[in-house]
């Protein structure tokens, strides 16, 4: 279809109906399957927490897999549903390149939070004793006071 109001738009994506329907169906099924897998992993993590076994590495691995699956979902939504994949490469780059800032953004702030925890555990023994998860029940515990909560809220 021509867009008389926008002469500067030189060509239009031609999507024939059958091809479009096939693509939307495929993407919907993919998103649903990925979500179901994510839910399965979430429940697996839950049962591991519950059985209280020492599987910290496996839980971490599962969480990593869920993160990757989420990125895959994001890719399909942006590229197919939002049609970014069909745009001109230069335009895609003006969106994607600035988003690279997230690589630093996530890494730096997670690192910072983790370092804050380590420093507090080292120098504030009260914080460590009152908040560190107990592997075995017993010993005396204190309630966590508001003063122990992070002071670095935004």
């Amino acid at each position, binding site marked *: *279809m021509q867009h008389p109001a926008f002469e500067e738009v030189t060509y239009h994506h031609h999507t024939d109906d059958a091809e479009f329907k096939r693509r939307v169906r495929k993407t919907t099924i993919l998103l649903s399957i990925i979500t179901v897998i994510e839910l399965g992993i979430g429940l697996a993590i839950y049962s591991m927490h519950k059985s209280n076994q020492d599987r910290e590495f496996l839980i971490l691995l599962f969480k990593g897999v869920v993160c990757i699956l*989420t990125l895959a979902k994001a890719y399909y939504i942006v590229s197919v*549903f939002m049609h970014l994949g069909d745009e001109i490469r230069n335009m895609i780059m003006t969106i994607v390149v600035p988003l690279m800032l997230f690589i630093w953004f996530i890494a730096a702030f997670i690192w910072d939070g983790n370092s804050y925890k380590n420093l507090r555990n080292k120098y504030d023994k009260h914080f460590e004793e009152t908040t560190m998860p107990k592997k075995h*029940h017993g010993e005396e515990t204190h309630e966590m006071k508001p003063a122990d909560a992070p002071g670095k809220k935004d």
Partner: protein
Amino acid sequence: MANTATTHQTKWWTGGKSPFNLEYGKLMMWYFLMSDAFTFGAFLISYGSIRFSQNFWPDPNVVFNAFPGAGHANLPLAFVSVMTFILIISSVTMVLAVHAGHKGDKQGVMKWLAWTIVGGIAFLSCQAWEWHHLITGQHAVLATDADGRQFIDIIGQTMGGNPWGQVVDHAQAQSALAASSHETLVHLVHEYPTQAAAGQSLEALEKMPASQLAGMVDVAHAHIREKGPIAFGGYFFGITGFHGFHVFSGVVINIIMLLMTQRNVFQNRGHYLMIEKAGLYWHFVDLVWVFVFLCFYLI
């Protein structure tokens, strides 16, 4: 400069045509969404930063395990997966509305937009139920009064506190029961009676002295916890609230688009590009939910 370009290539930058082959409004919608992605990203990263600074963080499966009409049944992840699928499906109907717009099919646009609006309202209703359930929930937590004495309190999840800390061991919970208020004890005995105390009516419990009630609570089933990290409630309500506000504004935009379509505004204009812009916004809302779902419910 234009002369240097080879003739068989499109001369994108010589003027008269859009170098990105997009009309202005749609391109600007993309840049708005990019900035909005940074806003949401900053919120989620701030949440991650605080979470990594804590030794203990609540397990989402303990917090989000309720389902409307299922009472106290433990159904982790069930309700949020319903919400996720509602949003995915409403995203699909939006794609179909945009596609109908490409073909200039007014009836198609209206039909699929209407379904998208239904999906958006359904999602918002789910979120309203979930918030209500969390805020009004009654969970037993170990609290400390001004004199440093421990007692059991009944709280829900709010910005000021939440009941999702670590489970308190039985002996400690039992001793804290002695210092708890009569009202709290009646509630606990009513919800978690020991076998010997089962079957007592609420009226009968009200008349009993606190010292007697304290011995009638089945501490093992009451799951008495410490208070959780305060930041948990604020981040949850703040970020899901900000996302819910986006869904709400998306629904409003879609309703406006539906009315404009119905009044032939786009038909007279000759194109349905506004539907594409509204569609981009709606898909973005779905995209953000994917990450909110990941950060709050899955990991």
